Protein backbone atom coordinates (compact mmCIF):
# COMPACT_ATOMS: atom_id res chain seq x y z
CA UNK A 1 0.00 0.00 0.00
CA UNK A 2 1.22 3.48 -0.76
CA UNK A 3 0.30 6.84 0.60
CA UNK A 4 -1.72 9.42 -1.26
CA UNK A 5 -1.64 13.18 -1.69
CA UNK A 6 -4.15 14.74 0.61
CA UNK A 7 -5.93 17.74 -0.83
CA UNK A 8 -5.69 19.65 2.43
CA UNK A 9 -1.91 19.32 2.42
CA UNK A 10 -1.41 20.69 -1.08
CA UNK A 11 -0.61 24.28 -1.96
CA UNK A 12 -3.17 26.41 -3.79
CA UNK A 13 -1.35 25.91 -7.08
CA UNK A 14 -1.06 22.17 -6.55
CA UNK A 15 -4.75 21.99 -5.74
CA UNK A 16 -5.72 23.70 -8.96
CA UNK A 17 -3.33 21.54 -10.98
CA UNK A 18 -4.69 18.38 -9.37
CA UNK A 19 -8.31 19.38 -9.82
CA UNK A 20 -8.49 20.56 -13.43
CA UNK A 21 -7.71 18.80 -16.70
CA UNK A 22 -3.96 18.37 -17.23
CA UNK A 23 -2.21 21.48 -18.48
CA UNK A 24 -5.52 23.30 -18.93
CA UNK A 25 -4.93 25.99 -16.32
CA UNK A 26 -4.06 29.47 -17.55
CA UNK A 27 -3.31 31.81 -14.67
CA UNK A 28 -4.54 35.37 -14.78
CA UNK A 29 -2.46 38.13 -13.22
CA UNK A 30 0.37 35.61 -12.75
CA UNK A 31 3.34 36.11 -10.40
CA UNK A 32 5.60 37.88 -12.93
CA UNK A 33 3.14 40.79 -12.82
CA UNK A 34 4.21 41.24 -9.19
CA UNK A 35 0.91 42.65 -7.96
CA UNK A 36 1.83 42.66 -4.29
CA UNK A 37 0.19 44.33 -1.33
CA UNK A 38 1.47 47.84 -0.60
CA UNK A 39 -0.09 47.60 2.85
CA UNK A 40 2.01 44.58 3.89
CA UNK A 41 5.13 46.14 2.38
CA UNK A 42 4.59 49.29 4.47
CA UNK A 43 4.12 47.19 7.59
CA UNK A 44 7.31 45.19 6.97
CA UNK A 45 5.46 41.93 6.41
CA UNK A 46 6.52 39.62 3.56
CA UNK A 47 4.43 39.97 0.42
CA UNK A 48 3.46 37.34 -2.10
CA UNK A 49 3.30 37.63 -5.89
CA UNK A 50 -0.27 36.35 -6.01
CA UNK A 51 -1.39 38.16 -2.84
CA UNK A 52 -2.73 34.91 -1.47
CA UNK A 53 -5.06 33.89 -4.27
CA UNK A 54 -4.36 32.11 -7.55
CA UNK A 55 -6.96 32.76 -10.24
CA UNK A 56 -7.42 31.67 -13.82
CA UNK A 57 -9.25 29.77 -16.48
CA UNK A 58 -9.17 26.00 -16.88
CA UNK A 59 -11.10 22.99 -18.04
CA UNK A 60 -12.66 20.39 -15.83
CA UNK A 61 -13.91 17.28 -17.57
CA UNK A 62 -13.58 19.20 -20.82
CA UNK A 63 -15.82 22.02 -19.58
CA UNK A 64 -14.47 25.52 -19.31
CA UNK A 65 -14.40 26.95 -15.79
CA UNK A 66 -13.03 29.88 -13.90
CA UNK A 67 -11.19 28.85 -10.79
CA UNK A 68 -9.59 30.49 -7.78
CA UNK A 69 -7.63 28.98 -4.91
CA UNK A 70 -6.77 30.87 -1.76
CA UNK A 71 -3.39 30.39 -0.09
CA UNK A 72 -4.10 29.65 3.55
CA UNK A 73 -0.45 29.81 4.56
CA UNK A 74 -0.18 33.42 3.42
CA UNK A 75 -1.60 35.67 6.18
CA UNK A 76 -4.25 33.02 6.86
CA UNK A 77 -5.60 33.30 3.34
CA UNK A 78 -7.12 36.59 4.41
CA UNK A 79 -8.62 38.99 1.90
CA UNK A 80 -6.83 42.26 1.21
CA UNK A 81 -7.50 44.83 -1.48
CA UNK A 82 -5.72 43.03 -4.32
CA UNK A 83 -6.75 39.55 -3.25
CA UNK A 84 -10.37 40.69 -3.02
CA UNK A 85 -10.31 42.54 -6.33
CA UNK A 86 -9.00 39.40 -8.05
CA UNK A 87 -11.94 37.45 -6.66
CA UNK A 88 -14.47 40.12 -7.62
CA UNK A 89 -13.05 40.30 -11.12
CA UNK A 90 -13.12 36.55 -11.51
CA UNK A 91 -16.78 36.20 -10.55
CA UNK A 92 -17.68 39.19 -12.72
CA UNK A 93 -15.89 37.52 -15.63
CA UNK A 94 -17.78 34.31 -14.88
CA UNK A 95 -21.08 36.18 -14.98
CA UNK A 96 -20.14 38.02 -18.15
CA UNK A 97 -18.93 34.90 -19.96
CA UNK A 98 -21.49 32.55 -18.38
CA UNK A 99 -18.71 30.21 -17.31
CA UNK A 100 -19.03 28.32 -14.00
CA UNK A 101 -16.75 29.50 -11.22
CA UNK A 102 -15.07 27.27 -8.62
CA UNK A 103 -13.59 28.83 -5.50
CA UNK A 104 -11.23 26.72 -3.40
CA UNK A 105 -11.56 28.50 -0.11
CA UNK A 106 -8.91 28.72 2.60
CA UNK A 107 -9.37 31.98 4.45
CA UNK A 108 -10.02 33.45 7.86
CA UNK A 109 -11.86 36.39 6.29
CA UNK A 110 -10.76 40.00 6.04
CA UNK A 111 -7.02 40.74 6.15
CA UNK A 112 -6.80 42.97 9.19
CA UNK A 113 -3.55 44.55 7.97
CA UNK A 114 -5.47 46.16 5.13
CA UNK A 115 -8.40 47.35 7.18
CA UNK A 116 -11.76 48.05 5.62
CA UNK A 117 -10.57 47.61 2.01
CA UNK A 118 -10.74 43.82 2.39
CA UNK A 119 -14.18 44.00 3.96
CA UNK A 120 -15.57 46.02 1.05
CA UNK A 121 -13.89 43.63 -1.39
CA UNK A 122 -15.72 40.70 0.18
CA UNK A 123 -19.02 42.59 -0.12
CA UNK A 124 -18.25 43.34 -3.76
CA UNK A 125 -17.41 39.70 -4.43
CA UNK A 126 -20.71 38.65 -2.87
CA UNK A 127 -22.49 40.95 -5.30
CA UNK A 128 -20.53 39.42 -8.18
CA UNK A 129 -21.42 35.91 -7.02
CA UNK A 130 -25.10 36.83 -7.09
CA UNK A 131 -24.60 38.28 -10.59
CA UNK A 132 -23.55 34.77 -11.59
CA UNK A 133 -26.49 33.23 -9.87
CA UNK A 134 -28.92 35.61 -11.54
CA UNK A 135 -27.62 34.28 -14.85
CA UNK A 136 -27.76 30.66 -13.65
CA UNK A 137 -23.96 30.46 -13.84
CA UNK A 138 -22.95 27.85 -11.23
CA UNK A 139 -20.77 29.01 -8.37
CA UNK A 140 -19.14 26.29 -6.27
CA UNK A 141 -17.15 26.68 -3.08
CA UNK A 142 -14.74 23.96 -1.99
CA UNK A 143 -13.89 23.96 1.73
CA UNK A 144 -11.34 21.32 2.62
CA UNK A 145 -8.92 22.60 5.24
CA UNK A 146 -8.86 23.51 8.90
CA UNK A 147 -8.27 27.16 8.03
CA UNK A 148 -11.53 26.66 6.21
CA UNK A 149 -14.00 29.44 5.48
CA UNK A 150 -14.30 31.90 8.34
CA UNK A 151 -15.34 35.47 8.96
CA UNK A 152 -16.56 37.28 5.87
CA UNK A 153 -15.42 34.41 3.68
CA UNK A 154 -17.54 32.02 5.74
CA UNK A 155 -20.54 34.20 4.89
CA UNK A 156 -19.41 34.54 1.28
CA UNK A 157 -19.22 30.77 0.90
CA UNK A 158 -22.92 30.52 1.73
CA UNK A 159 -23.70 32.87 -1.15
CA UNK A 160 -22.47 30.31 -3.70
CA UNK A 161 -24.85 27.79 -5.25
CA UNK A 162 -23.04 24.82 -3.72
CA UNK A 163 -20.45 23.91 -1.10
CA UNK A 164 -18.27 20.82 -1.39
CA UNK A 165 -16.59 19.91 1.89
CA UNK A 166 -14.29 17.29 3.36
CA UNK A 167 -14.10 16.11 6.95
CA UNK A 168 -11.10 18.44 7.44
CA UNK A 169 -12.96 21.51 6.21
CA UNK A 170 -14.45 23.99 8.62
CA UNK A 171 -17.14 26.56 7.93
CA UNK A 172 -18.19 29.34 10.25
CA UNK A 173 -17.95 33.03 11.05
CA UNK A 174 -16.41 33.44 14.51
CA UNK A 175 -13.51 31.09 15.24
CA UNK A 176 -13.28 29.00 18.41
CA UNK A 177 -10.66 31.19 20.08
CA UNK A 178 -12.79 34.31 19.66
CA UNK A 179 -15.86 32.54 21.03
CA UNK A 180 -13.89 31.11 23.95
CA UNK A 181 -12.72 34.63 24.82
CA UNK A 182 -16.28 35.86 24.64
CA UNK A 183 -18.16 33.04 26.36
CA UNK A 184 -15.49 31.45 28.50
CA UNK A 185 -13.69 28.16 28.33
CA UNK A 186 -16.63 26.32 29.85
CA UNK A 187 -18.91 27.24 27.01
CA UNK A 188 -16.32 26.62 24.31
CA UNK A 189 -12.91 25.09 24.94
CA UNK A 190 -11.06 25.99 21.76
CA UNK A 191 -8.38 23.39 22.56
CA UNK A 192 -10.98 20.63 22.39
CA UNK A 193 -10.39 19.82 18.76
CA UNK A 194 -13.07 17.16 18.59
CA UNK A 195 -15.66 19.71 19.77
CA UNK A 196 -14.35 22.34 17.36
CA UNK A 197 -14.79 19.99 14.41
CA UNK A 198 -18.18 18.82 15.57
CA UNK A 199 -19.20 22.47 15.76
CA UNK A 200 -17.89 23.70 12.43
CA UNK A 201 -16.49 20.68 10.58
CA UNK A 202 -17.65 19.25 7.29
CA UNK A 203 -19.57 16.38 8.85
CA UNK A 204 -21.89 18.56 10.91
CA UNK A 205 -22.29 21.01 8.03
CA UNK A 206 -23.23 18.17 5.70
CA UNK A 207 -25.63 16.69 8.21
CA UNK A 208 -27.48 19.99 8.61
CA UNK A 209 -27.53 20.57 4.87
CA UNK A 210 -25.08 23.48 4.68
CA UNK A 211 -22.60 21.42 2.66
CA UNK A 212 -23.94 19.80 -0.51
CA UNK A 213 -21.29 17.10 -0.73
CA UNK A 214 -18.95 15.51 1.79
CA UNK A 215 -16.11 13.79 0.02
CA UNK A 216 -12.67 12.23 0.48
CA UNK A 217 -9.74 14.53 1.10
CA UNK A 218 -8.38 13.98 -2.40
CA UNK A 219 -8.37 15.94 -5.62
CA UNK A 220 -10.07 13.06 -7.45
CA UNK A 221 -13.02 12.98 -5.08
CA UNK A 222 -13.38 16.75 -5.09
CA UNK A 223 -13.17 16.85 -8.88
CA UNK A 224 -15.97 14.26 -9.15
CA UNK A 225 -18.16 16.22 -6.77
CA UNK A 226 -17.49 19.53 -8.53
CA UNK A 227 -18.05 17.99 -11.96
CA UNK A 228 -21.49 16.77 -10.88
CA UNK A 229 -22.45 20.27 -9.78
CA UNK A 230 -21.08 22.15 -12.79
CA UNK A 231 -24.22 21.67 -14.83
CA UNK A 232 -26.57 22.72 -12.05
CA UNK A 233 -27.48 25.96 -10.45
CA UNK A 234 -29.62 26.67 -7.47
CA UNK A 235 -32.18 29.28 -8.43
CA UNK A 236 -33.24 31.97 -6.00
CA UNK A 237 -37.00 32.26 -6.23
CA UNK A 238 -39.73 33.26 -3.84
CA UNK A 239 -40.50 29.56 -3.36
CA UNK A 240 -36.88 28.68 -2.72
CA UNK A 241 -36.30 31.37 -0.09
CA UNK A 242 -39.59 30.54 1.63
CA UNK A 243 -38.65 26.86 1.79
CA UNK A 244 -35.22 27.76 3.12
CA UNK A 245 -36.75 30.08 5.70
CA UNK A 246 -38.86 27.19 7.00
CA UNK A 247 -35.87 24.84 7.06
CA UNK A 248 -33.75 27.26 9.02
CA UNK A 249 -36.57 28.05 11.43
CA UNK A 250 -37.08 24.36 12.03
CA UNK A 251 -33.35 23.85 12.60
CA UNK A 252 -33.23 26.66 15.13
CA UNK A 253 -36.33 25.41 16.92
CA UNK A 254 -35.03 21.84 17.08
CA UNK A 255 -31.47 22.53 18.11
CA UNK A 256 -31.33 26.12 19.36
CA UNK A 257 -30.99 24.95 22.95
CA UNK A 258 -28.79 21.96 22.21
CA UNK A 259 -25.24 22.48 23.37
CA UNK A 260 -24.13 18.93 22.62
CA UNK A 261 -23.22 18.32 18.98
CA UNK A 262 -23.59 14.57 19.51
CA UNK A 263 -27.27 15.16 20.29
CA UNK A 264 -27.61 16.95 16.95
CA UNK A 265 -25.93 14.05 15.17
CA UNK A 266 -28.23 11.58 16.89
CA UNK A 267 -31.31 13.60 16.07
CA UNK A 268 -30.17 13.73 12.46
CA UNK A 269 -30.09 9.95 12.34
CA UNK A 270 -26.49 9.07 13.25
CA UNK A 271 -26.62 6.00 15.45
CA UNK A 272 -22.99 5.10 16.13
CA UNK A 273 -21.40 8.41 17.19
CA UNK A 274 -17.89 6.99 17.77
CA UNK A 275 -17.96 5.13 14.47
CA UNK A 276 -19.28 8.15 12.61
CA UNK A 277 -16.60 10.37 14.18
CA UNK A 278 -13.87 8.10 12.91
CA UNK A 279 -15.48 7.52 9.52
CA UNK A 280 -14.18 9.22 6.40
CA UNK A 281 -16.33 11.83 4.70
CA UNK A 282 -18.12 9.54 2.24
CA UNK A 283 -18.45 6.77 4.84
CA UNK A 284 -20.09 9.29 7.12
CA UNK A 285 -22.38 10.51 4.38
CA UNK A 286 -23.49 6.94 3.83
CA UNK A 287 -24.01 6.33 7.55
CA UNK A 288 -26.04 9.43 8.21
CA UNK A 289 -29.50 10.07 6.98
CA UNK A 290 -29.24 13.24 4.99
CA UNK A 291 -30.59 16.16 7.04
CA UNK A 292 -32.93 18.86 5.96
Amino acid at each position, binding site marked *: MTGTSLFHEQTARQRIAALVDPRSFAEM*LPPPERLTSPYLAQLGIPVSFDDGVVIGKAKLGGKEIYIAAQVGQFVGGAVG*EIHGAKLTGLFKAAARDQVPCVLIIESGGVRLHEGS*AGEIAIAETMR*AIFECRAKKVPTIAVIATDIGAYGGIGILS*TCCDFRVMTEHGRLG*ISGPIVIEKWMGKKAYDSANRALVWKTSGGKT*KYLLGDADALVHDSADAIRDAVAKLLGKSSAITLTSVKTRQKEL*EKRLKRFGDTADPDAVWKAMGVRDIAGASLASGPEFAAMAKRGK
Partner: protein
Amino acid sequence: MKKPSARALFARLFGSSAKGISVEKSVLTGYAAAGGTKVCVIGTCDGTYIDNAAALRLAAHVIDCIEHHPKAPIVMLVDSAGQEPNRVAEMLGLASYFGHLLSCLELARRKGHKLITVATGQAVGGAFLCYGMFADRIYALDSASVGLMPVEAMSAVTKIPVAVLRKLSKTMPSLEFGAKPFALLGGVEEVWAAKDDVQAKLAKAIATASTEDNRAELGRKRGGRKLALDIRKKVLAASAR
Protein backbone atom coordinates in the same frame (compact mmCIF):
# COMPACT_ATOMS: atom_id res chain seq x y z
CA MET B 1 -22.50 64.52 21.21
CA LYS B 2 -25.22 62.52 22.94
CA LYS B 3 -26.30 59.42 21.15
CA PRO B 4 -29.91 59.81 20.00
CA SER B 5 -32.35 57.09 21.01
CA ALA B 6 -33.34 54.56 18.38
CA ARG B 7 -36.87 55.96 18.21
CA ALA B 8 -35.63 59.53 17.81
CA LEU B 9 -33.44 58.32 15.01
CA PHE B 10 -36.32 56.59 13.23
CA ALA B 11 -38.35 59.77 13.52
CA ARG B 12 -35.52 61.77 11.99
CA LEU B 13 -35.44 59.40 9.04
CA PHE B 14 -39.10 58.63 8.55
CA GLY B 15 -41.05 61.36 10.39
CA SER B 16 -44.32 60.22 11.83
CA SER B 17 -44.34 57.10 9.66
CA ALA B 18 -41.63 55.74 11.92
CA LYS B 19 -44.36 54.39 14.17
CA GLY B 20 -44.71 51.55 11.68
CA ILE B 21 -41.37 50.23 12.76
CA SER B 22 -41.44 47.71 15.58
CA VAL B 23 -38.42 46.81 17.63
CA GLU B 24 -37.98 43.48 19.28
CA LYS B 25 -34.73 42.49 20.96
CA SER B 26 -33.00 45.32 19.09
CA VAL B 27 -34.10 43.90 15.72
CA LEU B 28 -36.35 46.21 13.79
CA THR B 29 -38.89 45.42 11.11
CA GLY B 30 -41.80 47.35 9.70
CA TYR B 31 -43.06 49.68 7.05
CA ALA B 32 -42.68 53.43 6.93
CA ALA B 33 -42.70 56.19 4.34
CA ALA B 34 -39.89 58.03 2.63
CA GLY B 35 -40.33 60.66 -0.08
CA GLY B 36 -44.05 59.94 -0.03
CA THR B 37 -43.73 56.25 -0.86
CA LYS B 38 -44.07 53.23 1.31
CA VAL B 39 -40.77 51.65 2.28
CA CYS B 40 -39.95 48.43 4.02
CA VAL B 41 -37.57 48.85 6.98
CA ILE B 42 -35.30 46.23 8.43
CA GLY B 43 -32.35 46.63 10.71
CA THR B 44 -30.73 46.59 14.08
CA CYS B 45 -30.29 49.07 16.90
CA ASP B 46 -28.51 49.42 20.24
CA GLY B 47 -25.36 47.90 18.76
CA THR B 48 -26.88 44.46 19.19
CA TYR B 49 -25.22 41.23 18.07
CA ILE B 50 -26.96 39.41 15.25
CA ASP B 51 -27.77 35.76 15.86
CA ASN B 52 -29.62 33.09 13.92
CA ALA B 53 -33.04 34.21 15.12
CA ALA B 54 -32.35 37.85 14.25
CA ALA B 55 -31.23 36.91 10.75
CA LEU B 56 -34.40 34.86 10.29
CA ARG B 57 -36.63 37.72 11.43
CA LEU B 58 -34.99 40.13 9.04
CA ALA B 59 -35.26 37.59 6.21
CA ALA B 60 -38.91 36.90 7.00
CA HIS B 61 -39.68 40.58 6.74
CA VAL B 62 -37.90 40.88 3.40
CA ILE B 63 -39.96 37.93 2.11
CA ASP B 64 -43.12 39.59 3.43
CA CYS B 65 -42.23 42.76 1.56
CA ILE B 66 -41.57 40.88 -1.68
CA GLU B 67 -44.88 39.04 -1.38
CA HIS B 68 -47.10 41.86 -0.26
CA HIS B 69 -45.48 45.11 -1.33
CA PRO B 70 -44.00 44.61 -4.78
CA LYS B 71 -41.15 46.94 -5.62
CA ALA B 72 -41.33 48.80 -2.29
CA PRO B 73 -37.87 50.13 -1.50
CA ILE B 74 -36.14 48.40 1.40
CA VAL B 75 -34.30 50.60 3.85
CA MET B 76 -31.75 48.86 6.04
CA LEU B 77 -30.64 50.50 9.25
CA VAL B 78 -27.42 49.21 10.73
CA ASP B 79 -26.39 49.47 14.36
CA SER B 80 -24.81 46.17 15.29
CA ALA B 81 -21.48 45.29 16.87
CA GLY B 82 -21.15 42.03 14.97
CA GLN B 83 -22.36 38.49 14.60
CA GLU B 84 -23.23 36.70 17.83
CA PRO B 85 -20.02 34.95 18.94
CA ASN B 86 -21.65 31.78 20.21
CA ARG B 87 -20.79 28.14 19.80
CA VAL B 88 -24.32 26.87 19.30
CA ALA B 89 -24.99 29.64 16.78
CA GLU B 90 -21.92 28.47 14.86
CA MET B 91 -22.90 24.82 15.13
CA LEU B 92 -26.31 25.58 13.66
CA GLY B 93 -24.63 27.40 10.77
CA LEU B 94 -24.90 31.12 11.48
CA ALA B 95 -23.14 31.74 8.17
CA SER B 96 -25.95 29.94 6.37
CA TYR B 97 -28.54 32.06 8.14
CA PHE B 98 -26.70 35.14 6.92
CA GLY B 99 -26.45 33.64 3.43
CA HIS B 100 -30.18 33.13 3.46
CA LEU B 101 -30.79 36.76 4.45
CA LEU B 102 -28.55 37.86 1.59
CA SER B 103 -30.43 35.59 -0.84
CA CYS B 104 -33.71 37.16 0.21
CA LEU B 105 -32.29 40.63 -0.38
CA GLU B 106 -30.92 39.52 -3.75
CA LEU B 107 -34.36 38.22 -4.72
CA ALA B 108 -35.87 41.56 -3.70
CA ARG B 109 -33.32 43.43 -5.80
CA ARG B 110 -34.12 41.29 -8.83
CA LYS B 111 -37.80 41.85 -8.29
CA GLY B 112 -37.33 45.60 -8.47
CA HIS B 113 -37.00 46.59 -4.83
CA LYS B 114 -34.40 49.27 -4.33
CA LEU B 115 -32.06 48.53 -1.41
CA ILE B 116 -30.76 51.45 0.64
CA THR B 117 -28.63 51.17 3.75
CA VAL B 118 -28.20 53.82 6.40
CA ALA B 119 -25.48 53.05 8.91
CA THR B 120 -26.84 54.63 12.03
CA GLY B 121 -24.59 53.28 14.77
CA GLN B 122 -22.05 50.51 14.70
CA ALA B 123 -21.58 49.04 11.25
CA VAL B 124 -18.77 46.55 11.60
CA GLY B 125 -17.66 43.04 10.67
CA GLY B 126 -20.07 40.24 9.88
CA ALA B 127 -23.05 42.28 11.02
CA PHE B 128 -22.47 44.84 8.28
CA LEU B 129 -21.60 42.22 5.67
CA CYS B 130 -24.72 40.14 6.27
CA TYR B 131 -27.18 42.76 5.03
CA GLY B 132 -26.15 46.43 5.15
CA MET B 133 -23.23 46.19 2.76
CA PHE B 134 -25.42 44.32 0.30
CA ALA B 135 -27.51 47.41 -0.55
CA ASP B 136 -27.58 49.19 -3.89
CA ARG B 137 -26.40 52.33 -2.15
CA ILE B 138 -25.01 52.76 1.35
CA TYR B 139 -25.17 55.91 3.44
CA ALA B 140 -23.91 56.64 6.91
CA LEU B 141 -24.62 59.16 9.60
CA ASP B 142 -21.41 60.95 10.48
CA SER B 143 -21.84 59.73 14.04
CA ALA B 144 -21.83 56.11 12.92
CA SER B 145 -18.88 53.78 13.60
CA VAL B 146 -18.22 52.30 10.20
CA GLY B 147 -15.37 50.03 9.16
CA LEU B 148 -13.53 46.85 9.94
CA MET B 149 -12.40 47.75 13.44
CA PRO B 150 -10.70 50.57 15.38
CA VAL B 151 -6.90 50.65 15.13
CA GLU B 152 -6.59 49.62 18.79
CA ALA B 153 -8.44 46.38 18.07
CA MET B 154 -6.45 45.90 14.86
CA SER B 155 -3.24 46.37 16.81
CA ALA B 156 -4.30 43.86 19.45
CA VAL B 157 -4.80 41.14 16.85
CA THR B 158 -1.97 41.91 14.43
CA LYS B 159 0.54 42.87 17.18
CA ILE B 160 1.47 45.94 15.16
CA PRO B 161 1.86 48.97 17.46
CA VAL B 162 -1.06 51.41 17.46
CA ALA B 163 1.29 54.29 16.64
CA VAL B 164 2.48 52.56 13.46
CA LEU B 165 -1.08 51.89 12.31
CA ARG B 166 -2.16 55.44 13.10
CA LYS B 167 0.72 56.89 11.15
CA LEU B 168 0.04 54.67 8.17
CA SER B 169 -3.67 55.43 8.25
CA LYS B 170 -2.82 59.04 7.32
CA THR B 171 -1.93 57.81 3.84
CA MET B 172 -4.03 54.65 3.89
CA PRO B 173 -7.61 55.53 4.88
CA SER B 174 -8.48 51.85 4.80
CA LEU B 175 -6.75 51.47 8.16
CA GLU B 176 -8.77 54.28 9.71
CA PHE B 177 -12.10 53.64 11.39
CA GLY B 178 -15.20 55.75 10.75
CA ALA B 179 -17.81 56.79 8.23
CA LYS B 180 -15.62 59.35 6.44
CA PRO B 181 -12.61 57.14 5.71
CA PHE B 182 -15.02 54.38 4.73
CA ALA B 183 -16.58 56.78 2.22
CA LEU B 184 -13.09 57.50 0.81
CA LEU B 185 -12.86 53.79 0.04
CA GLY B 186 -16.20 53.95 -1.77
CA GLY B 187 -17.86 51.83 0.87
CA VAL B 188 -20.28 54.63 1.65
CA GLU B 189 -21.89 56.79 -1.00
CA GLU B 190 -22.32 59.82 1.22
CA VAL B 191 -21.99 60.73 4.87
CA TRP B 192 -24.92 62.55 6.36
CA ALA B 193 -24.23 65.24 8.93
CA ALA B 194 -26.28 66.10 12.00
CA LYS B 195 -27.58 69.28 10.41
CA ASP B 196 -28.67 67.54 7.22
CA ASP B 197 -32.31 66.99 6.36
CA VAL B 198 -31.95 63.24 6.33
CA GLN B 199 -35.56 62.64 5.31
CA ALA B 200 -34.92 64.51 2.11
CA LYS B 201 -31.57 62.80 1.71
CA LEU B 202 -33.16 59.38 2.13
CA ALA B 203 -35.86 60.18 -0.39
CA LYS B 204 -33.25 61.31 -2.87
CA ALA B 205 -31.13 58.24 -2.19
CA ILE B 206 -34.06 55.99 -3.03
CA ALA B 207 -34.88 57.93 -6.13
CA THR B 208 -31.34 57.85 -7.51
CA ALA B 209 -30.29 54.33 -6.52
CA SER B 210 -29.23 51.90 -9.19
CA THR B 211 -28.29 48.26 -8.87
CA GLU B 212 -24.84 48.73 -10.38
CA ASP B 213 -22.17 48.24 -7.66
CA ASN B 214 -20.20 51.49 -7.93
CA ARG B 215 -18.00 51.14 -4.87
CA ALA B 216 -14.74 50.35 -6.63
CA GLU B 217 -15.19 53.34 -8.96
CA LEU B 218 -15.94 55.59 -6.01
CA GLY B 219 -12.97 54.29 -4.08
CA ARG B 220 -10.67 55.02 -6.97
CA LYS B 221 -12.14 58.44 -7.64
CA ARG B 222 -11.93 59.44 -4.00
CA GLY B 223 -8.43 58.04 -3.70
CA GLY B 224 -9.05 55.76 -0.73
CA ARG B 225 -8.88 52.50 -2.66
CA LYS B 226 -6.55 52.99 -5.56
CA LEU B 227 -5.96 49.40 -6.65
CA ALA B 228 -9.23 47.50 -6.54
CA LEU B 229 -10.81 48.82 -9.72
CA ASP B 230 -7.66 48.46 -11.83
CA ILE B 231 -7.06 44.93 -10.62
CA ARG B 232 -10.64 43.99 -11.36
CA LYS B 233 -10.35 45.50 -14.86
CA LYS B 234 -7.12 43.60 -15.44
CA VAL B 235 -8.89 40.34 -14.54
CA LEU B 236 -11.80 41.16 -16.83
CA ALA B 237 -9.41 42.00 -19.64
CA ALA B 238 -7.23 38.93 -19.10
CA SER B 239 -10.25 36.63 -19.02
CA ALA B 240 -11.62 38.09 -22.22
CA ARG B 241 -8.48 37.11 -24.08
